[in-house]
């Protein structure tokens, strides 16, 4: 049961200290206030989250200074009338709520004769600040990345979208971690049903700790067993801002530099920020490359197996002979060869990720050059298999979203198995199976394969931003995610401009 805060400071202190007994990191102080220093106040904070209590400069310091200049009988009324209203300060009526307030990294303030506790903002928990993104690199455009602080992340989005229509809805996840979760959206663009849906899903679970947005993602997605992610992830504030401008919702979680964007489709995973910053020709070309890469990342080793093991008649004789010559002396069947190399590659990748920066790079060189060459020299694998595996890896790296690329990496093994045993028929069965799966997969009511399917819902306009990214002048309407009636995003003041 929640303990109410009373006007009796001693009572409040004893309740608060009982709650935070054996917490050496929590600093608690009693300070005398009033003209005659006859009244007491009590402040509590987490050691590193407050700026070394530089009283003069901090908000709490200034408040204490003012309170020392006021007569004792006016202190409570002054705090109630003036301090409660200062930026980000928040009054609490119970000890438990006050404790939660302090745990967000701010200072908690109790005053004798005042029946509330106040949270007074300070510098908060230590964080990394704004750094360059490590993934989703772009050639053109901002390189700012999200950090672990949710406040900083919302500010980075707000910096790009200076509109009062941008709303930030706060909620909490994790019974013990009490993690801030913010839903950032453009009020006049989102479909109301979408906001209700994500709020409903967020309220459907209770977990002890939500330490990263990945936990929230897994608990709120509908098809848990699908290898394809149903939320788009990004570490780039400009990507998040772009999504908000399309009427999508960005979900930020405290302590996570990865934002979730909903709804997500196959097409949105293939798009990158600089698709819109670069000219349409190069943007379209690279996008087509990425589509091809996503397909080959999953099917290339399988196709190689079906061509060399089952349907050799497809290939010209010279090529076939050189393939056969390359395989001479290799003791394993081609399927085993491919699986060996793919597993070795995945191991190298995993080792490269886990090792610190410079060592990670070394692993790449050791794995790629030395082990690959040694395996070929020892006749364990043929050089062509090394090429196939390397090309497949390149394709998976060309997919801009790591989570999305992972789906293809996993499905690649299914294709190896199917094509290894059934040849091109296995490839067709696998492709059809995945197409059927993707065709009924939805992310918040939007078909995953949209706008390749159901494009009629938005007058076939969304197809202008798929394989090809048409010139910006043609992309006058927002995609299907936006509510109807708010889909115009570009208008030319002079007629016919942008068409030529």
């Amino acid at each position, binding site marked *: 049961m929640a303990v109410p805060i009373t006007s009796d400071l001693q009572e409040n202190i004893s309740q608060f200290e009982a709650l935070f007994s054996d917490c050496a990191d929590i600093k608690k102080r009693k300070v005398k206030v009033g003209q005659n220093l006859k009244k007491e106040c009590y402040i509590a904070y987490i050691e590193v989250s407050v700026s070394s209590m530089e009283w003069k400069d901090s908000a709490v310091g200034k408040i204490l200074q003012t309170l020392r200049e006021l007569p004792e009988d006016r202190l409570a009324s002054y705090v109630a009338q003036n301090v409660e209203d200062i930026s980000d300060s928040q009054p609490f009526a119970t000890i438990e709520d006050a404790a939660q307030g302090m745990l967000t990294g701010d200072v908690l303030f109790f005053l004798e004769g005042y029946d509330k506790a106040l949270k007074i903002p300070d510098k908060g928990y230590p964080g990394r600040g704004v750094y360059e993104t490590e993934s989703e690199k772009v050639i053109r455009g901002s390189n700012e990345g999200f950090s672990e602080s949710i406040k900083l992340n919302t500010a980075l989005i707000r910096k790009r979208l200076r509109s009062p229509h941008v709303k930030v809805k706060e909620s909490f996840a994790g019974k013990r971690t009490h993690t801030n979760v913010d839903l950032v959206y453009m009020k006049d663009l989102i479909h109301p049903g979408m906001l209700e849906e994500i709020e409903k899903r967020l309220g459907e679970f209770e977990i002890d700790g939500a330490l990263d947005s990945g936990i929230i993602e897994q608990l709120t997605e509908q098809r848990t067993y699908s290898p394809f992610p149903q939320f788009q992830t990004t570490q780039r504030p400009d990507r998040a801002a772009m999504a908000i401008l399309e009427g999508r919702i960005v979900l930020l979680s405290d302590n996570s530099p990865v934002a979730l964007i909903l709804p997500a489709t196959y097409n949105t995973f293939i798009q990158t920020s600089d698709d819109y910053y670069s000219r349409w020709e190069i943007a379209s070309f690279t996008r087509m490359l990425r589509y091809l890469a996503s397909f080959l990342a999953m099917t290339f080793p399988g196709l190689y197996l079906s061509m060399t093991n089952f*349907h050799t008649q*497809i290939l010209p004789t010279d090529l076939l002979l050189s393939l056969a010559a390359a395989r001479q002396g290799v003791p394993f069947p081609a399927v085993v060869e491919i699986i060996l190399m793919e597993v070795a590659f995945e191991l190298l990748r995993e080792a490269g990720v886990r090792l610190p920066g410079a060592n990670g790079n070394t692993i790449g060189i050791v794995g790629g050059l030395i082990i690959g060459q040694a395996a070929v020299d020892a006749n364990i694998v043929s050089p062509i298999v090394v090429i196939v595996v390397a090309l497949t890896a390149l394709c998976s790296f060309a997919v801009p979203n790591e989570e999305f690329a992972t789906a293809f990496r996993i499905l690649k093994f299914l294709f190896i198995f199917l094509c290894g045993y059934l040849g091109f028929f296995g490839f*067709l069965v696998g492709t059809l199976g995945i*197409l059927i799966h993707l065709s009924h997969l939805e992310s918040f009511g939007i*078909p995953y*394969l949209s706008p390749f399917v159901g494009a009629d819902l938005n007058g076939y306009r969304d197809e202008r931003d798929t394989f090809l990214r048409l010139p910006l002048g043609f992309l006058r309407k927002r995609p299907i995610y936006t509510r109807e009636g708010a889909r115009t995003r570009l208008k030319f003041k002079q007629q016919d401009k942008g068409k030529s």
Partner: protein
Amino acid sequence: MFADNWKISLRQVRRLLILDLFGLSSLMLPGILSSLTGADGLFSLGLGAAGGWVFLWLIQKNLQNAEGDYYHYMKDTAGQIAGDAFMVFYYLYFVTLCGFVLYQVTTLVLTWLLPEGSYFWVSILLLLLAAYGTVRGIEGRARVYEIIFWFLGIPLLLMLFLALREIRTDYWYPLMYSGGGDFSRGTVAVWVFFLPLTAVLFLKPFCRKPEGLAGCGRWALGVAAALNGVIYLILLGVFGRNTLGVLKRPVITLMSMINLPGGFFTRQDVIMTSVWFLALFALMHTGVFQSTLILKELFHETGNRCSMWISLVLAFITGMGFFGNTFLMEVYEIYQKWIVLPGMTGILLILLLAFRIRQSGMKKEGMEREENRE
């Protein structure tokens, strides 16, 4: 949810129907037409397509009369017993069609893609895939074929274009040479291959704009007939009447003969088999889906998937029956020509007639009531 995507669009219907009509007809018709009518096959094709057009007109008239779905329209118009009997007739058509196409697609796989494979296991795998597609309803199915449509269409058109240089135009003659009996048999065969248009009748509750369904059917019929015409002319021009008549799947044989510029791929038959594999799978999937739907209506099934499994088992048994059994193939041909074609057309005519009678009866009743009131 909010994207209003639980109903299929007319583009999806159009593409689905084109694949349904194109796959089996382009694979089998050239051989049949060539042996029956030779160069006159093109006229048979045209007349057969006209038959399909008439059939579609009957479908359109009935769809216009139906207020709800087709099953309830049949019951309301012809009575409960006749309605159920018609549904059983349709069920048998779709389930046997599914079995027949299963046989065709499995044979295609075993001939061109997996010569050492097992008929039994390939059939099972294909049916399981169809079951997976059916479980998620028509939207998923329609989306699959909406996506793959151009992936199949573009290579096919390209290959047909490349095949033009192999044609010997003297093989297109003599014209008007075949006998009346053979010509009419060829025409009926073409008509039979366009009967999957029946699926249009059952699509009304699933379509976002049901008033455009007949138009989609016409579009699909036109495209399928045109493609068949082009393929027939090319095949006839490349192989000649006699060879074409004995080839089992001449269009795929043709694909193996076309040389791509650049010469990276020496033979394209394996890759191009995927066009027919996917088109046949689409038709088989239609068979499974429609028969499941009909059985569900007949047994008022809501939750479980008994209807689907029953249909799949029956299709599997039918498909297994066709394997190496020429007698059953002949029976199926007779069933299609002498029972299904007249039966389907008859049902549509009966329903139109019954609807007219019912309407005039209601008009009469209304007038009498008004007279009594006066």
